[in-house]
């Protein structure tokens, strides 16, 4: 029997706000001493009350708009009740039946095709504290770090529109890209700022068999999402084929063993007893609010990708590389300034030399030390023939190291290309005299020998020779090869 996989995702992303969701504590707790970013509110002390962080609401709505969601005019917070030592109040302030954003979708490129995945909802809630489990003299104990408690968190729930683990991974990467473009989240999965749970089931193509939905947790990287889901596809399919029972349950991915194991079955599902948060007023959003938020949104990745392909005549792969990060795309456009001719060269330079420098120095494009205007100047120098491509690479490195403009470096170091025929002819003459074997080879019809001679000319001029002029002079001087 042929099966189809059905996957829906629940993604949590921490928002990049200055303060926490309901108090004034700094939300930037990474690397901080445990329990230093805390106050009565995020500690859940008796008598403390939450106050809504407006910026978090704006970021959530912006995310919803980017995901083509409908933003209802009325939204509210609810209490999700459960007890655990990482939950300071014994309930999490979340959103239940009236989330900030509903009914959207995200389109992205996968396998050269445009794929659309429905977004059921995006809601805003608070993160929990972090538990650190230790052992001392053979006895386990746990520590609580409350710094993370109350950091704003959005939950994005998709429709069950994904059909394979690879597609799920591609969706997650596209979603991460959107969040990063908006600047609302670092969406860093390894740091826990971007977390994903998945619901996965199988159904037969003829619709006669529908397997139960299994929730997969504890996937901490894009790779583990794909691996866990692939494992689960196989586990569920082989059970269905063998007629073994499958149950609706929650399973955890064990990274080291590369398997999923049952954590909780449906009968033990928690009743969270949601009810409206009485400490907070509802949120009303007007059309004006939405217009204002929309005005602050950048162009989104897929739109930009398509525009790059269209307006700059770039290939899909190149446009993809350039739009993967907003900062790179911004850099590209700042350099090109609408000039299609420069675009081709700029794309080459950025995806080639600059990316190499970024990798080598482990910096992002803003830290590489070459401003977009400087790259543009460099491209102009090559285009005008002032320097050749080889020298240009040297100049680029010099710009990144010194911060000086390419013009200045070329002038100061005398790197301008030698196109003067008299000067070049003298060098050509000398090279021909010093390399009789190559000359003989050339005259015997080994055309490739001219490359060697050209190299010698370049070497003599420390790479500054205008290659076209030098070749012309070499050919003139040597005459036509003997057939």
């Amino acid at each position: 029997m042929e099966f189809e996989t059905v996957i829906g995702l629940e993604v949590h992303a921490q928002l990049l706000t200055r303060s926490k969701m309901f108090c004034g504590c700094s939300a930037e707790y990474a690397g901080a001493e445990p329990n230093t970013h805390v106050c009565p509110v995020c500690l859940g002390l008796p008598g403390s009350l939450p106050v809504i962080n407006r910026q978090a609401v704006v970021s959530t709505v912006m995310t919803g708009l980017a995901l083509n969601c409908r933003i209802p005019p009325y939204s509210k917070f609810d209490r999700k009740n459960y007890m655990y030592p990482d939950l300071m109040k014994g309930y999490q302030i979340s959103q239940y039946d009236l989330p900030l954003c509903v009914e959207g979708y995200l389109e992205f490129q996968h396998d050269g095709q445009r794929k659309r995945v429905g977004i059921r909802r995006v809601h805003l809630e608070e993160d929990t504290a972090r538990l650190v489990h230790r052992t001392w003299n053979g006895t386990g104990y746990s520590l609580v770090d409350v710094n993370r408690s109350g950091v704003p968190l959005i939950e994005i729930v998709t429709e069950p529109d994904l059909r394979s683990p690879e597609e799920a991974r591609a969706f997650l990467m596209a979603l991460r890209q959107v969040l990063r473009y908006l600047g609302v989240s670092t969406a860093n999965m390894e740091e826990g700022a971007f977390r994903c749970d998945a619901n996965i089931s199988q159904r037969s193509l003829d619709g006669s068999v529908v397997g139960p939905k299994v929730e997969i947790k504890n996937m901490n990287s894009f790779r583990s999402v794909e691996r866990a889901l692939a494992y689960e596809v196989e586990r569920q399919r082989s059970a269905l084929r063998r007629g073994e029972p499958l149950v609706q349950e929650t399973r955890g991915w064990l990274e080291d063993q590369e398997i999923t194991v049952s954590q909780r079955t449906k009968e033990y599902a928690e009743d969270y007893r949601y009810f409206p948060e009485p400490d907070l007023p509802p949120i009303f959003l007007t059309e004006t609010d939405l217009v204002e938020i929309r005005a602050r949104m950048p162009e989104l990745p897929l739109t930009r990708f398509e525009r790059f392909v269209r307006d700059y005549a770039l290939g899909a792969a190149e446009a993809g590389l350039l739009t993967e990060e907003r900062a790179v795309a911004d850099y590209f456009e700042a350099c090109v300034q609408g000039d299609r001719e420069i675009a081709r060269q700029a794309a080459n330079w950025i995806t080639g030399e600059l990316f190499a420098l970024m990798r080598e120095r482990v910096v992002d494009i803003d830290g590489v030390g070459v401003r977009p205007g400087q790259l543009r100047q460099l491209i102009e120098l090559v285009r005008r023939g002032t320097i050749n491509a080889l020298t240009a690479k040297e100049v680029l490195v010099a710009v990144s190291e010194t911060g000086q403009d390419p013009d200045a470096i070329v002038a100061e170091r005398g790197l301008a290309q030698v196109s003067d025929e008299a000067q070049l002819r003298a060098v050509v003459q000398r090279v021909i005299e010093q390399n009789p074997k190559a000359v003989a080879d050339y005259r015997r019809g080994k055309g490739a020998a001219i490359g060697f001679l050209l190299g010698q000319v370049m070497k003599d001029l420390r790479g500054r020779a205008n290659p076209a002029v030098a070749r012309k002079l070499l050919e003139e001087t040597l005459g036509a090869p003997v057939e």
Partner: protein
Amino acid sequence: MSEDLTRLTVTEASARLARREISAVELLQAHLERIRQVEPQIHAFITLTEEVALAQAQEADRRIARGDVAPLTGIPIALKDVLCTVDAPTTAGSRILEGFRSPYDATVVRKLREQGAVFVGKANTDEFAMGSSTENSAYGPTRNPWDLERVPGGSSGGSAAAVAAGEAMVSLGSDTGGSIRQPAGFCGVVGLKPTYGRVSRYGLVAFASSLDQIGPFGRTVEDVAIVLQAISGHDPCDSTSVDVPVPDYQTSLTGDIRGIRIGIAAEYQVPGMDPEVERVVDEAVAELQRLGAEIVPVSLPHTKYALATYYIIAPSEASANLARYDGVKYGLSLQGETLLESYLQTRGRGFGPEVKRRIMLGTYALSAGYYDAYYVKAQKVRTLIKRDFDEAFEKVDVILAPTSPTVAFRLGERTADPIQMYLSDVFTIPANMAGLPGIAVPCGFAHGLPVSMQFMGRPFDEGTLLRVAHAYEQATPWHRAVPPLIEAVTRRAPSGGTE
């Protein structure tokens, strides 16, 4: 000096402090002396903060010497022990908060501190303000200064008794279903529950968030107005506090209520009503008419559902509000073999039976499959109750009702029957459900015990409540009555403010 300074009102004491006829330390000493005399019998306080008070009184005297006098500078105040204070433990009347000290002051506490008030102690309360008699305090019951065999009412019984006994000049309580007005009534003092949103709840240990309000107790309406003035106003830390201007309440106290329309609802005649109480309240109504008020019958048809609705909404909210007491972070912490065992032991021993009952009620009402039938329905009824009041206030300026159906009952009389206990709040709960302000004023005696009537008003119209209550008070002698116990100790040992 043989004068009893504990008999002064805030207005009188404040004037004499400003003129430097008395010092804040003397005023405090008089109250400490009273505490020494009667506290062993009354037990109005969970924690007495004599040293804090003394330092505050000395500071108040320095302020007064500089001419920097606020209305409550040097005034001895009791704080219900559900208000967070940095300089004393906050127990909420519960074992589960044993040893807990708040690292921050409640907003109302901060406001009083800024005025230079003197905190004599943390007043006794039913555990987490759940109760109507203060018998649910884990630290023992408070007794009524008018009759030590009787309860002072609750949950703010300590705050009411302290003021009635002269252990504090004024006090703060909290009112979720009547917890200020009912004990004010039982103890023969004035108590006001402000409009929901008038006073910040930041730092009030939460019972039912959508109903809780902090409010003052005093022996006169004017004293209550002064304290209300001090604690009112929007607080950025409490999103449910409303940003509307706070009027000058003392200017409301004109003494003139001619033409005021007072509504009386037929629905406030309930079975179980003590006929003596009814008679006293009827006399008060007649007095109000003599003062020029117009009595208008109104109808509040859904008010009969208020009590039942309250016992869905308040426990539901409480079940969540009390989930944080898990023994992990502060207060009582008992270790079990597993996390669940630790929770069960800590909460099992930390909470008293009434608190457990309400957590179970609320947890049940919010559970899957019951939520719509209970919580959602209760919210709908709440809207209807509110609508009744809106309609009534189109015809009248205030609504009058007895504060409680009976006078103070005996200790232990209702502890075995929660429903009987709950019924003592039948007249006070509707104002909480509708978020309206209510004031309880002494209006006579029945069976030798204080009887109280209640005025409810439009949202944020505390001014009219104070005006009506004040006019009545000034025309009647009830606020000058002193519990026999206090008369006795005053005669026995004239308080002079020194040891």
